[in-house]
Protein backbone atom coordinates (compact mmCIF):
# COMPACT_ATOMS: atom_id res chain seq x y z
CA UNK A 1 0.00 0.00 0.00
CA UNK A 2 1.23 3.45 -0.89
CA UNK A 3 2.26 5.77 1.93
CA UNK A 4 2.75 9.46 2.45
CA UNK A 5 5.31 9.67 5.27
CA UNK A 6 3.78 7.37 7.85
CA UNK A 7 0.28 7.90 6.48
CA UNK A 8 -1.37 4.99 4.72
CA UNK A 9 -3.07 6.06 1.50
CA UNK A 10 -6.24 4.43 0.18
CA UNK A 11 -6.04 2.42 -3.05
CA UNK A 12 -8.06 4.85 -5.10
CA UNK A 13 -5.29 7.38 -4.63
CA UNK A 14 -3.76 5.79 -7.74
CA UNK A 15 -6.98 6.13 -9.77
CA UNK A 16 -6.26 9.02 -12.16
CA UNK A 17 -9.82 10.43 -12.34
CA UNK A 18 -9.62 10.98 -8.58
CA UNK A 19 -7.39 13.95 -9.39
CA UNK A 20 -9.61 15.48 -12.10
CA UNK A 21 -12.59 17.49 -10.93
CA UNK A 22 -15.53 15.48 -12.30
CA UNK A 23 -18.12 17.60 -14.14
CA UNK A 24 -21.09 15.26 -13.69
CA UNK A 25 -22.96 16.10 -10.50
CA UNK A 26 -23.48 12.66 -9.00
CA UNK A 27 -19.97 11.58 -9.77
CA UNK A 28 -18.54 14.78 -8.38
CA UNK A 29 -20.48 14.44 -5.12
CA UNK A 30 -19.07 10.97 -4.64
CA UNK A 31 -15.59 12.16 -5.50
CA UNK A 32 -15.85 15.08 -3.07
CA UNK A 33 -16.98 12.71 -0.33
CA UNK A 34 -13.86 10.57 -0.79
CA UNK A 35 -11.65 13.65 -0.76
CA UNK A 36 -13.27 15.00 2.40
CA UNK A 37 -12.66 11.75 4.26
CA UNK A 38 -9.09 11.58 3.08
CA UNK A 39 -8.28 15.21 3.93
CA UNK A 40 -9.68 14.84 7.46
CA UNK A 41 -7.90 11.52 8.03
CA UNK A 42 -4.62 12.88 6.78
CA UNK A 43 -4.77 16.16 8.72
CA UNK A 44 -5.67 14.34 11.90
CA UNK A 45 -2.83 11.88 11.61
CA UNK A 46 -0.32 14.59 10.70
CA UNK A 47 -1.77 17.19 13.10
CA UNK A 48 -2.29 19.66 10.27
CA UNK A 49 -4.72 22.49 11.01
CA UNK A 50 -4.23 24.83 8.09
CA UNK A 51 -4.10 24.07 4.38
CA UNK A 52 -2.80 26.86 2.15
CA UNK A 53 -4.31 26.55 -1.29
CA UNK A 54 -1.37 28.14 -2.98
CA UNK A 55 1.28 26.12 -1.23
CA UNK A 56 2.35 22.59 -1.99
CA UNK A 57 0.30 20.16 -0.02
CA UNK A 58 1.55 16.57 -0.21
CA UNK A 59 -1.90 15.02 -0.28
CA UNK A 60 -2.90 16.95 -3.38
CA UNK A 61 -0.18 15.43 -5.55
CA UNK A 62 0.46 11.83 -6.48
CA UNK A 63 3.91 11.49 -8.02
CA UNK A 64 3.32 7.79 -8.78
CA UNK A 65 0.65 8.51 -11.41
CA UNK A 66 1.85 12.09 -11.98
CA UNK A 67 -1.41 13.77 -11.13
CA UNK A 68 -2.06 16.96 -9.11
CA UNK A 69 -5.33 18.49 -8.02
CA UNK A 70 -6.06 21.76 -9.76
CA UNK A 71 -6.61 24.91 -7.75
CA UNK A 72 -10.30 24.83 -8.60
CA UNK A 73 -10.62 21.24 -7.44
CA UNK A 74 -8.91 22.02 -4.12
CA UNK A 75 -11.28 24.87 -3.56
CA UNK A 76 -14.32 22.72 -4.39
CA UNK A 77 -13.35 19.92 -2.01
CA UNK A 78 -12.37 22.24 0.85
CA UNK A 79 -15.59 24.21 0.36
CA UNK A 80 -17.45 20.93 0.72
CA UNK A 81 -15.74 20.46 4.09
CA UNK A 82 -16.60 24.05 5.04
CA UNK A 83 -20.26 23.51 4.23
CA UNK A 84 -20.29 20.54 6.58
CA UNK A 85 -18.71 22.51 9.38
CA UNK A 86 -15.51 20.49 9.20
CA UNK A 87 -13.42 23.41 7.94
CA UNK A 88 -13.45 27.19 7.77
CA UNK A 89 -12.04 29.68 5.36
CA UNK A 90 -9.58 31.91 7.16
CA UNK A 91 -9.70 34.77 4.64
CA UNK A 92 -12.10 36.23 2.13
CA UNK A 93 -9.97 35.17 -0.81
CA UNK A 94 -10.24 31.50 0.25
CA UNK A 95 -6.51 31.03 0.21
CA UNK A 96 -6.19 29.44 3.65
CA UNK A 97 -8.44 26.86 5.15
CA UNK A 98 -8.69 25.83 8.79
CA UNK A 99 -9.37 22.11 9.04
CA UNK A 100 -11.50 20.96 11.97
CA UNK A 101 -10.99 17.22 12.11
CA UNK A 102 -12.48 17.68 15.54
CA UNK A 103 -15.27 20.22 15.78
CA UNK A 104 -14.84 23.05 18.30
CA UNK A 105 -17.32 21.27 20.60
CA UNK A 106 -15.25 18.09 20.42
CA UNK A 107 -12.10 20.03 21.18
CA UNK A 108 -13.79 21.55 24.23
CA UNK A 109 -14.73 18.07 25.48
CA UNK A 110 -11.19 16.98 24.84
CA UNK A 111 -9.85 19.83 27.02
CA UNK A 112 -12.26 18.95 29.81
CA UNK A 113 -11.09 15.34 29.77
CA UNK A 114 -7.52 16.50 29.83
CA UNK A 115 -8.25 18.74 32.82
CA UNK A 116 -9.98 15.91 34.66
CA UNK A 117 -7.29 13.36 33.98
CA UNK A 118 -4.55 15.64 35.22
CA UNK A 119 -6.49 17.00 38.19
CA UNK A 120 -6.22 20.53 36.97
CA UNK A 121 -9.61 21.68 38.18
CA UNK A 122 -9.46 25.06 39.91
CA UNK A 123 -5.89 25.61 38.86
CA UNK A 124 -4.60 28.22 36.44
CA UNK A 125 -2.72 27.39 33.21
CA UNK A 126 -1.44 29.53 30.40
CA UNK A 127 -2.86 28.83 26.99
CA UNK A 128 0.60 28.02 25.73
CA UNK A 129 0.97 25.38 28.47
CA UNK A 130 -2.05 23.52 27.15
CA UNK A 131 -0.52 23.36 23.68
CA UNK A 132 3.01 22.43 24.58
CA UNK A 133 3.22 21.64 28.29
CA UNK A 134 4.45 18.34 29.71
CA UNK A 135 0.94 17.25 30.65
CA UNK A 136 -0.45 17.51 27.13
CA UNK A 137 2.40 15.59 25.51
CA UNK A 138 1.08 12.53 23.71
CA UNK A 139 -2.52 13.72 23.74
CA UNK A 140 -4.52 15.21 20.91
CA UNK A 141 -4.01 18.61 22.47
CA UNK A 142 -0.26 18.61 21.80
CA UNK A 143 0.44 21.14 19.10
CA UNK A 144 -3.17 22.23 18.75
CA UNK A 145 -3.68 25.28 16.59
CA UNK A 146 -3.88 28.44 18.68
CA UNK A 147 -7.03 29.72 17.01
CA UNK A 148 -8.79 26.41 17.49
CA UNK A 149 -7.70 26.22 21.14
CA UNK A 150 -8.81 29.77 21.89
CA UNK A 151 -12.21 29.11 20.35
CA UNK A 152 -12.63 25.89 22.31
CA UNK A 153 -11.74 27.75 25.52
CA UNK A 154 -14.23 30.53 24.69
CA UNK A 155 -16.90 27.88 24.30
CA UNK A 156 -16.01 26.48 27.74
CA UNK A 157 -16.12 29.98 29.18
CA UNK A 158 -19.62 30.47 27.80
CA UNK A 159 -20.68 27.30 29.53
CA UNK A 160 -19.13 28.53 32.76
CA UNK A 161 -16.49 25.82 32.86
CA UNK A 162 -13.48 28.05 32.39
CA UNK A 163 -12.41 31.64 32.87
CA UNK A 164 -9.95 33.33 30.56
CA UNK A 165 -7.61 36.00 31.91
CA UNK A 166 -6.16 38.56 29.59
CA UNK A 167 -2.43 38.87 29.94
CA UNK A 168 -0.12 41.59 28.68
CA UNK A 169 0.59 39.70 25.48
CA UNK A 170 -1.06 36.85 23.62
CA UNK A 171 1.50 34.45 25.06
CA UNK A 172 0.48 34.79 28.66
CA UNK A 173 -3.25 34.48 28.45
CA UNK A 174 -4.33 32.38 31.38
CA UNK A 175 -7.18 29.96 31.95
CA UNK A 176 -8.81 28.88 35.15
CA UNK A 177 -10.94 25.72 34.90
CA UNK A 178 -13.81 25.22 37.23
CA UNK A 179 -15.00 21.83 38.33
Amino acid at each position, binding site marked *: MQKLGDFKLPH*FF*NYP*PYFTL*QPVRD*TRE*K*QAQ*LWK*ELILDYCRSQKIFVIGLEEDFPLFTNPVIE*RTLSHEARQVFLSALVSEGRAEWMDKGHKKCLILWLRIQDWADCILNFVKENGLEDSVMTVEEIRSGIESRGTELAGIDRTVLTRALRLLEQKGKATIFKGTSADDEGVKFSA
Partner: protein
Amino acid sequence: MAGKWLPSVHLTGSGRPVFLPGEVECFLLSSVDLESEENPNLPPFKSGLLILTTHRFIWIDESNGYGVAIPLASVVHAYPPKKSIKSMFSSPRVRIQINGHGLEVGFGSTGMITLVLRGKNDPEAFFGRVWDVMRSRAWENEVEKPGPSDSKAASSGGRDGLSSGIRMAGVSGILRKEQEMWESTDKSLQDAFQDLNALMSKAKEMVTLAEKMRQKLLSGPTQDAGPNDEEMGSKQEMQDWLLSVGIVSPVTKESAGALYHQQLARQLADFVKVPLERAGGMIALIDVYCLFNRARGTELISPEDLLQACALWEKFDVPVMLRKFDSGVMVIQNKAHSDEEVFARIKTLVLKPDALRRGISPSDAAMTLGIAPALAKEHLLTAESKGLLCRDISPEGFRFYINLFQDVDPNDIYTVKDRGLFSSWFSVVTASG
Protein backbone atom coordinates in the same frame (compact mmCIF):
# COMPACT_ATOMS: atom_id res chain seq x y z
CA MET B 1 -57.81 2.36 -54.69
CA ALA B 2 -60.91 3.07 -56.69
CA GLY B 3 -60.69 5.85 -59.21
CA LYS B 4 -57.12 5.21 -60.21
CA TRP B 5 -57.59 5.67 -63.91
CA LEU B 6 -53.89 6.31 -64.45
CA PRO B 7 -51.02 3.84 -63.87
CA SER B 8 -49.53 4.22 -60.39
CA VAL B 9 -45.85 4.79 -59.62
CA HIS B 10 -43.54 3.32 -57.01
CA LEU B 11 -42.53 5.66 -54.24
CA THR B 12 -39.46 5.43 -51.99
CA GLY B 13 -39.77 5.15 -48.24
CA SER B 14 -39.70 8.90 -47.88
CA GLY B 15 -42.25 9.56 -50.60
CA ARG B 16 -40.06 10.34 -53.56
CA PRO B 17 -40.87 8.65 -56.88
CA VAL B 18 -38.62 5.85 -58.11
CA PHE B 19 -37.19 7.10 -61.39
CA LEU B 20 -36.66 5.17 -64.58
CA PRO B 21 -33.10 4.76 -65.86
CA GLY B 22 -31.96 8.08 -67.25
CA GLU B 23 -34.99 9.96 -66.01
CA VAL B 24 -34.32 13.47 -64.69
CA GLU B 25 -36.66 15.86 -62.91
CA CYS B 26 -37.32 19.06 -64.78
CA PHE B 27 -40.07 20.93 -62.95
CA LEU B 28 -42.09 20.66 -59.77
CA LEU B 29 -45.48 22.15 -59.01
CA SER B 30 -47.53 21.88 -55.86
CA SER B 31 -51.33 21.80 -55.60
CA VAL B 32 -52.11 20.36 -58.99
CA ASP B 33 -55.34 18.53 -59.92
CA LEU B 34 -55.61 16.00 -62.73
CA GLU B 35 -58.98 15.80 -64.44
CA SER B 36 -60.25 13.73 -67.33
CA GLU B 37 -61.98 15.95 -69.83
CA GLU B 38 -64.04 13.39 -71.80
CA ASN B 39 -65.14 11.42 -68.84
CA PRO B 40 -66.08 13.62 -65.88
CA ASN B 41 -67.22 10.48 -64.07
CA LEU B 42 -63.63 9.52 -63.47
CA PRO B 43 -62.76 10.99 -60.06
CA PRO B 44 -60.10 13.70 -60.42
CA PHE B 45 -56.77 13.50 -58.61
CA LYS B 46 -56.93 16.44 -56.23
CA SER B 47 -54.22 18.75 -55.03
CA GLY B 48 -51.04 16.76 -55.42
CA LEU B 49 -47.44 17.40 -56.26
CA LEU B 50 -46.76 17.33 -59.99
CA ILE B 51 -43.28 16.41 -61.15
CA LEU B 52 -42.35 16.88 -64.78
CA THR B 53 -39.47 14.61 -65.72
CA THR B 54 -37.77 13.87 -68.99
CA HIS B 55 -39.98 10.77 -69.25
CA ARG B 56 -43.23 11.32 -67.39
CA PHE B 57 -45.70 13.51 -65.64
CA ILE B 58 -45.72 12.16 -62.09
CA TRP B 59 -48.49 13.15 -59.73
CA ILE B 60 -48.05 12.39 -56.02
CA ASP B 61 -50.48 12.59 -53.13
CA GLU B 62 -47.95 13.30 -50.40
CA SER B 63 -50.22 12.86 -47.44
CA ASN B 64 -51.51 9.46 -48.52
CA GLY B 65 -48.28 8.27 -50.08
CA TYR B 66 -49.35 7.20 -53.54
CA GLY B 67 -48.78 8.53 -57.01
CA VAL B 68 -49.73 8.09 -60.65
CA ALA B 69 -47.88 8.81 -63.87
CA ILE B 70 -48.51 9.75 -67.48
CA PRO B 71 -45.66 8.64 -69.73
CA LEU B 72 -44.65 11.43 -72.09
CA ALA B 73 -44.49 8.79 -74.82
CA SER B 74 -48.27 8.66 -74.81
CA VAL B 75 -48.72 12.43 -74.88
CA VAL B 76 -49.77 13.50 -78.36
CA HIS B 77 -49.96 17.20 -77.79
CA ALA B 78 -49.95 19.77 -75.00
CA TYR B 79 -52.05 22.94 -75.11
CA PRO B 80 -50.85 26.09 -73.31
CA PRO B 81 -52.88 27.76 -70.57
CA LYS B 82 -55.56 29.97 -72.12
CA LYS B 83 -55.17 33.68 -71.91
CA SER B 84 -58.56 35.24 -71.53
CA ILE B 85 -60.33 37.51 -69.11
CA LYS B 86 -62.17 34.56 -67.72
CA SER B 87 -59.02 32.60 -67.04
CA MET B 88 -57.61 35.45 -64.99
CA PHE B 89 -59.99 34.57 -62.22
CA SER B 90 -59.64 30.82 -62.24
CA SER B 91 -56.66 28.54 -61.88
CA PRO B 92 -54.54 28.17 -65.01
CA ARG B 93 -55.07 24.91 -66.91
CA VAL B 94 -52.68 23.04 -69.11
CA ARG B 95 -54.40 20.45 -71.29
CA ILE B 96 -52.64 17.44 -72.68
CA GLN B 97 -53.89 15.10 -75.35
CA ILE B 98 -53.21 11.46 -74.62
CA ASN B 99 -52.97 8.43 -76.82
CA GLY B 100 -54.53 6.01 -74.39
CA HIS B 101 -53.18 2.74 -75.79
CA GLY B 102 -50.35 2.71 -73.31
CA LEU B 103 -52.64 3.56 -70.43
CA GLU B 104 -54.80 0.72 -69.34
CA VAL B 105 -57.39 1.90 -66.92
CA GLY B 106 -60.64 3.49 -67.98
CA PHE B 107 -59.31 5.33 -70.95
CA GLY B 108 -60.29 5.36 -74.59
CA SER B 109 -57.89 5.44 -77.48
CA THR B 110 -57.42 9.17 -77.14
CA GLY B 111 -58.38 11.60 -74.49
CA MET B 112 -57.68 14.90 -72.86
CA ILE B 113 -56.34 15.36 -69.38
CA THR B 114 -56.46 18.76 -67.75
CA LEU B 115 -53.78 19.83 -65.29
CA VAL B 116 -55.29 22.42 -62.97
CA LEU B 117 -52.50 24.49 -61.44
CA ARG B 118 -53.92 25.75 -58.17
CA GLY B 119 -50.67 26.73 -56.46
CA LYS B 120 -48.78 29.98 -56.81
CA ASN B 121 -46.93 28.78 -59.84
CA ASP B 122 -45.69 30.22 -63.05
CA PRO B 123 -47.79 28.37 -65.66
CA GLU B 124 -45.90 29.87 -68.59
CA ALA B 125 -42.55 28.67 -67.29
CA PHE B 126 -44.05 25.26 -66.62
CA PHE B 127 -45.50 25.00 -70.08
CA GLY B 128 -42.18 26.09 -71.56
CA ARG B 129 -40.49 23.19 -69.82
CA VAL B 130 -43.18 20.79 -71.00
CA TRP B 131 -42.43 21.78 -74.55
CA ASP B 132 -38.68 21.48 -74.05
CA VAL B 133 -39.03 18.02 -72.60
CA MET B 134 -41.46 16.87 -75.28
CA ARG B 135 -39.15 18.08 -77.97
CA SER B 136 -36.03 16.40 -76.55
CA ARG B 137 -37.83 13.02 -76.52
CA ALA B 138 -35.45 11.60 -73.94
CA TRP B 139 -37.64 8.52 -73.38
CA GLU B 140 -37.00 7.33 -76.93
CA ASN B 141 -33.24 7.19 -76.42
CA GLU B 142 -33.64 4.69 -73.67
CA VAL B 143 -35.93 2.51 -75.72
CA GLU B 144 -33.48 2.37 -78.59
CA LYS B 145 -30.62 1.04 -76.49
CA PRO B 146 -32.01 -0.90 -73.59
CA GLY B 147 -28.74 -2.48 -72.36
CA PRO B 148 -26.37 0.05 -70.82
CA SER B 149 -23.29 -1.72 -72.19
CA ASP B 150 -24.56 -2.95 -75.53
CA SER B 151 -22.15 -1.10 -77.73
CA LYS B 152 -19.20 -2.16 -75.67
CA ALA B 153 -20.29 -5.75 -75.46
CA ALA B 154 -20.64 -5.84 -79.21
CA SER B 155 -17.06 -4.71 -79.72
CA SER B 156 -15.73 -7.43 -77.46
CA GLY B 157 -17.63 -10.24 -79.10
CA GLY B 158 -21.16 -9.96 -77.81
CA ARG B 159 -22.60 -10.59 -74.42
CA ASP B 160 -21.89 -14.31 -74.48
CA GLY B 161 -18.20 -13.50 -74.77
CA LEU B 162 -18.24 -12.36 -71.18
CA SER B 163 -17.76 -15.78 -69.70
CA SER B 164 -15.49 -17.35 -72.31
CA GLY B 165 -12.95 -15.06 -73.94
CA ILE B 166 -11.29 -12.11 -72.32
CA ARG B 167 -11.46 -12.07 -68.56
CA MET B 168 -14.46 -9.84 -68.15
CA ALA B 169 -15.96 -11.74 -65.27
CA GLY B 170 -15.49 -11.23 -61.57
CA VAL B 171 -13.95 -8.34 -59.80
CA SER B 172 -10.98 -7.90 -62.08
CA GLY B 173 -13.26 -7.86 -65.08
CA ILE B 174 -15.36 -5.20 -63.54
CA LEU B 175 -12.28 -3.24 -62.66
CA ARG B 176 -11.08 -3.45 -66.25
CA LYS B 177 -14.46 -2.33 -67.51
CA GLU B 178 -14.34 0.41 -64.98
CA GLN B 179 -10.98 1.48 -66.35
CA GLU B 180 -12.42 1.68 -69.86
CA MET B 181 -15.35 3.56 -68.61
CA TRP B 182 -13.18 6.02 -66.77
CA GLU B 183 -11.26 6.66 -69.95
CA SER B 184 -14.42 7.54 -71.81
CA THR B 185 -15.61 9.50 -68.82
CA ASP B 186 -12.40 11.42 -68.91
CA LYS B 187 -13.06 12.30 -72.52
CA SER B 188 -16.61 13.38 -71.75
CA LEU B 189 -15.29 15.50 -68.93
CA GLN B 190 -12.85 17.21 -71.22
CA ASP B 191 -15.60 17.87 -73.71
CA ALA B 192 -17.87 19.06 -71.00
CA PHE B 193 -15.50 21.62 -69.64
CA GLN B 194 -15.05 23.40 -72.93
CA ASP B 195 -17.71 25.84 -72.01
CA LEU B 196 -20.50 26.15 -69.55
CA ASN B 197 -23.24 25.54 -72.04
CA ALA B 198 -21.62 22.35 -73.12
CA LEU B 199 -21.35 21.35 -69.47
CA MET B 200 -25.03 21.85 -68.93
CA SER B 201 -25.89 19.76 -71.95
CA LYS B 202 -23.57 17.03 -70.71
CA ALA B 203 -25.06 16.97 -67.25
CA LYS B 204 -27.61 14.34 -68.06
CA GLU B 205 -25.01 12.18 -69.72
CA MET B 206 -22.92 12.40 -66.54
CA VAL B 207 -25.83 11.30 -64.44
CA THR B 208 -26.55 8.39 -66.76
CA LEU B 209 -22.91 7.37 -66.56
CA ALA B 210 -22.95 7.38 -62.81
CA GLU B 211 -26.10 5.33 -62.75
CA LYS B 212 -24.66 2.78 -65.16
CA MET B 213 -21.59 2.37 -62.99
CA ARG B 214 -23.69 1.86 -59.94
CA GLN B 215 -25.78 -0.82 -61.60
CA LYS B 216 -22.68 -2.65 -62.65
CA LEU B 217 -21.06 -2.49 -59.24
CA LEU B 218 -24.22 -3.67 -57.60
CA SER B 219 -24.48 -6.73 -59.79
CA GLY B 220 -20.77 -7.45 -60.07
CA PRO B 221 -18.90 -8.23 -56.87
CA THR B 222 -21.03 -11.03 -55.49
CA GLN B 223 -20.54 -13.60 -58.21
CA ASP B 224 -17.02 -14.93 -57.61
CA ALA B 225 -15.27 -12.80 -55.07
CA GLY B 226 -12.48 -15.02 -53.79
CA PRO B 227 -11.09 -14.83 -50.29
CA ASN B 228 -7.73 -13.36 -51.26
CA ASP B 229 -6.68 -9.96 -50.03
CA GLU B 230 -6.52 -8.25 -53.36
CA GLU B 231 -10.12 -8.96 -54.08
CA MET B 232 -11.18 -7.99 -50.60
CA GLY B 233 -9.32 -4.74 -51.13
CA SER B 234 -11.01 -4.01 -54.41
CA LYS B 235 -14.35 -4.93 -52.91
CA GLN B 236 -13.74 -2.32 -50.29
CA GLU B 237 -12.74 0.13 -52.98
CA MET B 238 -15.89 -0.65 -54.84
CA GLN B 239 -18.03 -0.05 -51.83
CA ASP B 240 -16.40 3.33 -51.58
CA TRP B 241 -17.29 4.01 -55.17
CA LEU B 242 -20.79 2.91 -54.45
CA LEU B 243 -21.07 5.65 -51.93
CA SER B 244 -19.94 8.27 -54.34
CA VAL B 245 -22.51 7.61 -57.04
CA GLY B 246 -26.19 7.21 -56.98
CA ILE B 247 -28.46 10.20 -57.16
CA VAL B 248 -29.96 9.96 -60.59
CA SER B 249 -32.06 13.02 -60.47
CA PRO B 250 -30.82 15.64 -58.05
CA VAL B 251 -33.46 17.96 -56.71
CA THR B 252 -32.34 21.41 -57.78
CA LYS B 253 -33.58 24.86 -56.94
CA GLU B 254 -34.18 25.37 -60.61
CA SER B 255 -36.52 22.43 -60.95
CA ALA B 256 -38.28 22.53 -57.60
CA GLY B 257 -38.62 26.19 -56.68
CA ALA B 258 -40.38 26.60 -53.34
CA LEU B 259 -40.74 22.86 -52.91
CA TYR B 260 -36.97 22.59 -52.97
CA HIS B 261 -36.34 21.90 -49.31
CA GLN B 262 -39.22 19.47 -48.97
CA GLN B 263 -38.07 17.39 -51.90
CA LEU B 264 -34.47 17.68 -50.76
CA ALA B 265 -35.45 16.40 -47.33
CA ARG B 266 -37.11 13.35 -48.84
CA GLN B 267 -34.26 12.68 -51.19
CA LEU B 268 -31.76 13.03 -48.38
CA ALA B 269 -33.70 10.61 -46.22
CA ASP B 270 -33.48 8.03 -48.99
CA PHE B 271 -29.84 8.73 -49.58
CA VAL B 272 -28.52 8.47 -46.01
CA LYS B 273 -29.83 4.93 -45.51
CA VAL B 274 -26.75 3.20 -46.89
CA PRO B 275 -24.08 5.40 -45.28
CA LEU B 276 -25.99 5.25 -41.99
CA GLU B 277 -25.99 1.50 -42.03
CA ARG B 278 -22.28 1.43 -42.71
CA ALA B 279 -21.59 3.88 -39.92
CA GLY B 280 -23.55 1.88 -37.37
CA GLY B 281 -26.67 4.00 -37.14
CA MET B 282 -25.17 7.42 -36.58
CA ILE B 283 -23.21 9.71 -38.86
CA ALA B 284 -21.87 13.24 -38.46
CA LEU B 285 -23.75 15.91 -40.39
CA ILE B 286 -20.52 17.10 -41.95
CA ASP B 287 -19.85 13.65 -43.37
CA VAL B 288 -23.36 13.49 -44.79
CA TYR B 289 -22.85 16.87 -46.39
CA CYS B 290 -19.73 15.66 -48.16
CA LEU B 291 -21.20 12.33 -49.26
CA PHE B 292 -24.44 13.88 -50.42
CA ASN B 293 -22.78 16.57 -52.48
CA ARG B 294 -20.39 14.06 -53.96
CA ALA B 295 -23.33 11.97 -55.06
CA ARG B 296 -25.12 14.98 -56.50
CA GLY B 297 -22.27 15.74 -58.83
CA THR B 298 -22.64 19.24 -60.17
CA GLU B 299 -25.85 20.22 -58.37
CA LEU B 300 -24.23 21.07 -55.02
CA ILE B 301 -26.27 22.16 -52.05
CA SER B 302 -25.22 24.59 -49.35
CA PRO B 303 -24.87 23.69 -45.68
CA GLU B 304 -27.94 25.82 -44.94
CA ASP B 305 -29.96 23.83 -47.46
CA LEU B 306 -28.86 20.63 -45.77
CA LEU B 307 -29.82 21.90 -42.33
CA GLN B 308 -33.22 23.05 -43.55
CA ALA B 309 -33.82 19.74 -45.25
CA CYS B 310 -32.94 17.89 -42.04
CA ALA B 311 -35.17 20.17 -40.02
CA LEU B 312 -38.09 19.26 -42.29
CA TRP B 313 -37.78 15.58 -41.39
CA GLU B 314 -39.80 16.21 -38.28
CA LYS B 315 -42.82 16.84 -40.51
CA PHE B 316 -42.36 13.77 -42.68
CA ASP B 317 -42.59 10.16 -41.76
CA VAL B 318 -38.97 9.20 -42.43
CA PRO B 319 -36.86 6.66 -40.52
CA VAL B 320 -34.03 9.11 -39.79
CA MET B 321 -33.62 12.15 -37.55
CA LEU B 322 -31.30 15.02 -36.83
CA ARG B 323 -29.74 15.00 -33.37
CA LYS B 324 -27.80 17.76 -31.70
CA PHE B 325 -25.41 16.84 -28.90
CA ASP B 326 -24.88 19.11 -25.91
CA SER B 327 -21.56 20.14 -27.36
CA GLY B 328 -23.28 21.38 -30.53
CA VAL B 329 -22.09 18.53 -32.73
CA MET B 330 -24.89 17.51 -35.07
CA VAL B 331 -25.47 14.01 -36.38
CA ILE B 332 -28.01 12.11 -38.39
CA GLN B 333 -29.19 8.91 -36.80
CA ASN B 334 -31.70 6.16 -37.32
CA LYS B 335 -34.77 6.65 -35.21
CA ALA B 336 -34.26 3.10 -34.06
CA HIS B 337 -30.69 3.83 -32.96
CA SER B 338 -30.21 3.12 -29.28
CA ASP B 339 -27.63 4.69 -27.02
CA GLU B 340 -27.88 1.68 -24.72
CA GLU B 341 -26.22 -0.52 -27.26
CA VAL B 342 -23.38 1.94 -27.70
CA PHE B 343 -22.97 2.21 -23.94
CA ALA B 344 -22.75 -1.55 -23.65
CA ARG B 345 -19.94 -1.58 -26.17
CA ILE B 346 -18.16 1.28 -24.43
CA LYS B 347 -18.44 -0.55 -21.13
CA THR B 348 -16.86 -3.67 -22.56
CA LEU B 349 -14.10 -1.50 -23.91
CA VAL B 350 -13.25 0.30 -20.66
CA LEU B 351 -13.28 -2.93 -18.67
CA LYS B 352 -10.41 -4.43 -20.63
CA PRO B 353 -7.28 -4.67 -18.44
CA ASP B 354 -5.36 -2.12 -20.41
CA ALA B 355 -8.24 0.37 -20.32
CA LEU B 356 -8.65 -0.17 -16.56
CA ARG B 357 -5.01 0.76 -16.15
CA ARG B 358 -4.68 3.61 -18.61
CA GLY B 359 -8.21 4.63 -19.58
CA ILE B 360 -9.33 5.20 -23.16
CA SER B 361 -9.08 8.19 -25.45
CA PRO B 362 -11.80 9.20 -27.92
CA SER B 363 -9.65 7.86 -30.75
CA ASP B 364 -9.36 4.45 -29.02
CA ALA B 365 -13.13 4.35 -28.83
CA ALA B 366 -13.43 5.55 -32.42
CA MET B 367 -11.32 2.64 -33.63
CA THR B 368 -13.18 0.02 -31.63
CA LEU B 369 -16.63 1.35 -32.45
CA GLY B 370 -15.74 2.05 -36.06
CA ILE B 371 -16.92 5.66 -35.98
CA ALA B 372 -15.40 9.13 -36.33
CA PRO B 373 -13.36 10.38 -33.33
CA ALA B 374 -15.56 13.45 -32.89
CA LEU B 375 -18.58 11.18 -32.69
CA ALA B 376 -16.82 8.75 -30.37
CA LYS B 377 -16.10 11.64 -28.04
CA GLU B 378 -19.78 12.56 -28.00
CA HIS B 379 -20.66 8.99 -27.07
CA LEU B 380 -18.06 8.99 -24.30
CA LEU B 381 -19.34 12.29 -22.94
CA THR B 382 -22.89 10.98 -22.97
CA ALA B 383 -21.75 7.83 -21.17
CA GLU B 384 -19.97 10.07 -18.67
CA SER B 385 -23.10 12.11 -18.04
CA LYS B 386 -24.93 8.86 -17.33
CA GLY B 387 -22.35 8.00 -14.69
CA LEU B 388 -20.79 5.13 -16.57
CA LEU B 389 -17.45 6.84 -17.11
CA CYS B 390 -15.39 9.55 -15.53
CA ARG B 391 -12.63 11.67 -16.92
CA ASP B 392 -8.94 12.15 -16.39
CA ILE B 393 -7.36 15.32 -17.71
CA SER B 394 -3.59 15.45 -17.62
CA PRO B 395 -0.72 16.60 -19.79
CA GLU B 396 -1.08 13.25 -21.55
CA GLY B 397 -4.53 14.24 -22.75
CA PHE B 398 -8.18 13.67 -22.12
CA ARG B 399 -8.97 10.07 -21.15
CA PHE B 400 -11.96 8.21 -19.83
CA TYR B 401 -12.06 5.54 -17.12
CA ILE B 402 -14.78 3.33 -15.80
CA ASN B 403 -16.48 5.17 -12.94
CA LEU B 404 -15.23 3.66 -9.67
CA PHE B 405 -16.42 6.41 -7.35
CA GLN B 406 -19.76 4.68 -6.80
CA ASP B 407 -17.94 1.56 -5.72
CA VAL B 408 -15.97 2.90 -2.76
CA ASP B 409 -17.57 3.08 0.66
CA PRO B 410 -16.86 6.60 1.95
CA ASN B 411 -17.05 5.36 5.53
CA ASP B 412 -14.34 2.82 4.90
CA ILE B 413 -12.03 4.21 2.27
CA TYR B 414 -9.24 1.70 2.79
CA THR B 415 -11.06 -1.54 2.13
CA VAL B 416 -11.48 -3.05 -1.30
CA LYS B 417 -14.67 -5.04 -1.57
CA ASP B 418 -14.28 -8.59 -2.85
CA ARG B 419 -16.46 -7.98 -5.85
CA GLY B 420 -17.36 -5.16 -8.16
CA LEU B 421 -15.61 -2.74 -10.45
CA PHE B 422 -13.26 -1.39 -7.83
CA SER B 423 -11.83 -4.80 -7.02
CA SER B 424 -11.33 -5.67 -10.70
CA TRP B 425 -9.59 -2.35 -11.20
CA PHE B 426 -7.49 -2.92 -8.10
CA SER B 427 -6.39 -6.40 -9.16
CA VAL B 428 -5.34 -5.16 -12.60
CA VAL B 429 -3.45 -2.17 -11.23
CA THR B 430 -1.61 -4.17 -8.56
CA ALA B 431 -0.78 -6.92 -11.04
CA SER B 432 0.98 -4.40 -13.24
CA GLY B 433 3.17 -3.37 -10.29
